[in-house]
């Protein structure tokens, strides 16, 4: 832990200069951020994790939702083949706890956006448009889809996503979760910087 802390300190000092100096063509902080303080939101999510552990004996995790969805679709078109796959034998696609949880997450996001006057109803975010042009929906489509494929494959291989490992695993001081999160940010920062410099 101390090591992680020290590394993050060094990183922070090192990154201050490039963060200001590097030219990505846009600055993310010119667009609106969160309505609430990140510390209030984070603490709230921490409390939610107590509740799910205590009342449901479950940890918060999202990525398995998409695997369940994939299983549903697979069973619709190729039932026998889907049932023969080792992953779906161990994780049978049913509307289980995580599936209901994530479905409600979508609704919760809608309620927050609607009541807060932040419902966006847009296909491209202004920051994307400013950087990649007004007519870049096809690019966004391809980049988003390919990103989703990489992300899901990585999450299944690692055993969780930014929720399952990033919050639930790290808060249990699970060694593998800290490793996974470090690799997630490493890959993400590298790719994002490349994308915004080259593309």
């Amino acid at each position: 832990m101390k090591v992680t802390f020290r590394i993050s300190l060094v990183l922070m000092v090192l990154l201050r200069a490039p963060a200001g100096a590097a030219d990505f063509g846009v600055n993310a902080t010119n667009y609106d951020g969160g309505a609430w303080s990140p510390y209030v939101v984070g603490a709230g999510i921490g409390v939610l994790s107590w509740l799910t552990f205590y009342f449901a004996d479950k940890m918060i995790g999202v990525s398995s939702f998409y695997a369940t969805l994939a299983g549903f679709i697979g069973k619709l078109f190729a039932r026998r083949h889907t049932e023969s796959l080792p992953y779906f034998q161990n994780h049978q696609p049913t509307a289980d706890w995580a599936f209901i949880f994530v479905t409600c997450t979508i609704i919760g996001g809608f309620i927050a956006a609607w009541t807060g006057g932040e419902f966006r109803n847009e296909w491209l975010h202004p920051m994307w448009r400013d950087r990649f042009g007004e007519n870049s929906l096809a690019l966004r489509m391809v980049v988003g889809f390919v990103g989703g494929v990489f992300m899901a494959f990585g999450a299944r291989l690692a055993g969780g996503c930014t929720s399952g490992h990033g919050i639930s695993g790290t808060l249990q001081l699970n060694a593998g979760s800290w490793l996974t999160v470090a690799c997630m940010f490493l890959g993400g920062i590298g790719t994002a910087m490349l994308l915004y410099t080259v593309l």
Partner: protein
Amino acid sequence: MIEPGKVVKKGSESQELGAPGGVKLLTAIVCGLAFGFLLQKGGVAKYNVLIGQLLLQDFTVVKIMVSAIVVGMVGIFTLNRFAKVNLHLQPTRLGAQTIGGLLFGIGFALFAYCPGTGAVALGQGSWDALFGMAGLVAGCWLYAELSGWLKKTVETWGECGRMVIPDLFKIPRLPFAYVTAILLVIGLFILQRAFPR
């Protein structure tokens, strides 16, 4: 004295199939709604906030994650110490988690939303989340297709089983969690000074 990490409540080890009922169902609904609500209010369903984190221009994501870890950690380890909750530890697999984490990161930068915040972005009317969500389903399918082979190869590399950081240093879990939480809070103070947003 409860052995840390052991099952302290019944029902954890049995694989449940099918839809949950009763209290569990209610917890899924209430906590799911609250989770989505909080993520949207935190701004982490916004493209610029997420990409801003990866470009190191906006530190909202790290601030939310670290404060969730601090609050969650203190509560869960305290509750576990008094046998009120089970820990849910994923096994540590050095190979699969290094490769999986890096692949996830690449996908994160391309899609910009992560699986959870993508779901919230959809609820918030950011329709570009749909492309990535379709990709997530496709990626899960791809993994399932290869799962037999991956289990025998990549997922056996550096297999360590369940590994909790304090156990590695032979330090009792609860004090270790409290000290870590304090260090993370100090880290957040420094982060806030360096990056107001």
